[in-house]
């Protein structure tokens, strides 16, 4: 009998709920029973409430079981796991699980399907197609494709990637750099981590294409120290891609060089800000730089530098492979393509949902997320990380689109969505936002460094009802200073969660309904 292929994910989120133990139990139990299995450690499909999600390859497709614990393995094998038989933990064909079937997986099409480090798997699933096309184009033509696709920075700022690339292409310098910002510090986000752990060659391919486009020969991936698995996988992937000729002195024999290096961050949230990140890669304290000069003109080591988020760069191979129009045809308004939304926090079905821009928070929360995990009413949803606004139910039908969100004082950001049920104390969360800013501020500008500490104190006085109306006024004034006077988004956006909490949930601050208008 030929070996049956069984997939057990190696994504951090699967490992954190026992995937290694499941893989070990499966191997041991199959050996004991004389069953011939080939266990592949794939990436995660992103259906995290089902992790560890074990899949078995059958003639009809891959059949899913989850969440599987090591102690379930024997019973699953008894029930006919290797034939894809029914079981209480079974979910039928993976591709037909509604959560997955309803998505538009463009960037994440290989996620959880392949063995992340297998070059053969990557190639068999449309890998390197974009690079092959890019190698036949000149830099300006590649940049034009990215511009035409309407790709905007997925790190949160949503700046058109093509414009950045064009600036670097137009700059003349002996050395240019591509820097991938993988300092994914936002709570509620994990799409960068999944990409690096689950489909690392896609990021490498995107970075090589960026290098070819702008004439950069060296790239850095700055990965947070909290992501040891991502660091390990990316490092191995770079080594293998170099050995296979996709990186190095002559990319695919083209005579054009591009090399890549991983740099490990050290736990400073503000290093997700692009200029602080450059300082950190240069071996310094991660202090934000004043702009101008733009990094595209004077970036890493003073040279022209493209800085993009993991997902921005990972979207590039597909754009080159399928053409700008294919990508641009997804989305709405000026938000083109798809965004891997990340459903997190108190949500029943937390995970990764890649969809075109334009769907609503309500669809994500209920059609995908299935409501809160606690079963209680959802009270507030923070969209776009710790610097994103809390979005109340009255706004859940607004389409997820950069402009529509900006219009209501919120941000789509990196696509992180953190759900809080009705036990959440919004004043406490607003205080936490200020506290977090105080802990993580780089200290260069006063509104952020001092304002965050004063913010904590003011919120404490509001909740303790010490001169509340005056303190509310003071908090608003402080937030205004932080928004308009901070050097970067750390201080400049901390008021988003604070003010949205105050505006939409004044009762949590002890402000009764009549004060609502003033608040």
């Amino acid at each position, binding site marked *: 009998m030929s070996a049956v292929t069984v997939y057990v994910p190696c994504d*951090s*989120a699967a*490992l*954190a*709920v026992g995937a290694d133990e499941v893989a070990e139990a499966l191997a041991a139990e199959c050996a004991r029973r004389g069953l011939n299995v080939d266990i592949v450690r794939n990436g995660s499909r992103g259906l*995290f*409430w089902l*992790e560890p999600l074990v899949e078995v390859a059958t003639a009809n497709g891959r059949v899913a079981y989850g969440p599987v614990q090591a102690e379930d393995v024997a019973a699953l094998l008894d029930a006919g796991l290797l034939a894809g038989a029914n079981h209480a933990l079974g979910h039928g064909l993976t591709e037909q699980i509604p959560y997955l079937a309803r998505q538009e997986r463009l960037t994440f099409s290989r996620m959880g399907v392949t063995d992340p480090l297998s070059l053969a798997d990557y190639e068999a699933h449309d890998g390197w197609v974009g690079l092959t096309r890019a190698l036949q184009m000149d830099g300006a033509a590649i940049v034009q494709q990215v511009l035409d696709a309407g790709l905007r920075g997925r790190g949160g700022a949503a700046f058109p990637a093509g414009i950045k690339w064009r600036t670097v292409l137009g700059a003349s310098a002996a050395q240019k750099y591509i820097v991938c910002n993988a300092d*994914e*510090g*936002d*709570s*509620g*986000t*994990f799409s960068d*981590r999944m990409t690096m752990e689950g489909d690392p060659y896609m990021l490498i391919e995107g970075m090589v294409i960026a290098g070819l486009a702008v004439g950069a020969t060296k790239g850095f991936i700055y990965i947070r*120290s*909290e*992501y*040891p698995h991502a660091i390990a996988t990316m490092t191995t992937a770079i080594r293998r891609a170099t050995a296979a000729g996709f990186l190095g002195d002559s990319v695919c024999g083209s005579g054009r060089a591009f090399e890549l290096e991983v*740099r*490990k*961050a*050290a*736990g*400073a*949230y503000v290093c997700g800000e692009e200029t602080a990140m450059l300082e*950190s*890669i*240069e*071996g*310094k*304290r*991660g202090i934000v730089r004043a702009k101008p000069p733009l990094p595209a003109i004077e970036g890493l*080591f003073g040279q022209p530098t493209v800085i993009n988020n993991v997902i921005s760069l990972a979207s590039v191979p597909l754009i080159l492979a399928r053409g700008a129009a294919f990508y641009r045809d997804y989305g709405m308004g000026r938000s083109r393509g798809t965004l891997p939304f*990340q*459903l*997190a*926090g*108190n*949500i029943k079905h*937390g*995970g*990764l949902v890649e969809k075109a821009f334009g769907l609503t928070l309500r669809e994500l929360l209920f059609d995908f997320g299935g409501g809160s*995990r606690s079963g209680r009413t959802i009270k507030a949803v*923070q969209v776009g990380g*710790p610097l994103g606004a809390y979005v109340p139910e009255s706004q859940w039908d607004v389409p997820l689109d950069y402009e529509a969100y900006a219009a209501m004082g919120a941000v789509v950001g990196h696509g*992180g969505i*953190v*759900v*809080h*049920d009705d036990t*959440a104390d919004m004043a406490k*969360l607003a205080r*936490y936002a200020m506290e*977090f800013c105080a*802990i*993580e501020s780089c200290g260069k500008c006063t509104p952020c460094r001092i304002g965050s500490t004063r913010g904590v104190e003011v919120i404490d006085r509001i909740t303790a009802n010490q001169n509340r109306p005056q303190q509310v006024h003071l908090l608003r004034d402080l937030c205004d200073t932080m928004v308009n006077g901070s050097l970067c988004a750390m201080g400049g956006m901390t008021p988003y969660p604070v003010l949205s909490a105050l505006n939409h949930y004044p009762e949590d601050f002890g402000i009764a309904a009549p004060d609502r208008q003033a608040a």
Partner: protein
Amino acid sequence: MQIDLGTVRNIAEAHRQTPGGLMPALHAVQDALGHVPDAAVPILAESFNLSRAEVHGVVTYYHHFRREPAGRHVVQVCRAEACQACGAEALLANAEKQLQGCDVTLEPVYCLGLCASSPAIQIDDKLHARVTPQRLQALLSQLEVAQ
């Protein structure tokens, strides 16, 4: 405690030619010694042609670098928003209580990237997600610690 400064010298030597090599060097020192001792600062400063103040500034800027050795185990409890929404604060309080007097470094961490499986913790190199108070208690009880 004996500090192996020879190791620090070798690391400094290995990274001094690397552009921006101080960060990789500090990581290497911490990986080798478990922390970045103050005695390593002048050695690194000399290798990288920096002042001691500059190296000290970098070491103390980043949360990841420790200037003192950690306890026998390191327990990190995520207290970012997604984990807060799933009971992280109570988890941290429980851990504090259970680990009182133990040779364990307990510290908050701001996001382990397991936000769809909150609350998350890390014990030494191992991640744990969907951690209930019972599970936390069981995990911490397994640690070999001097009371």
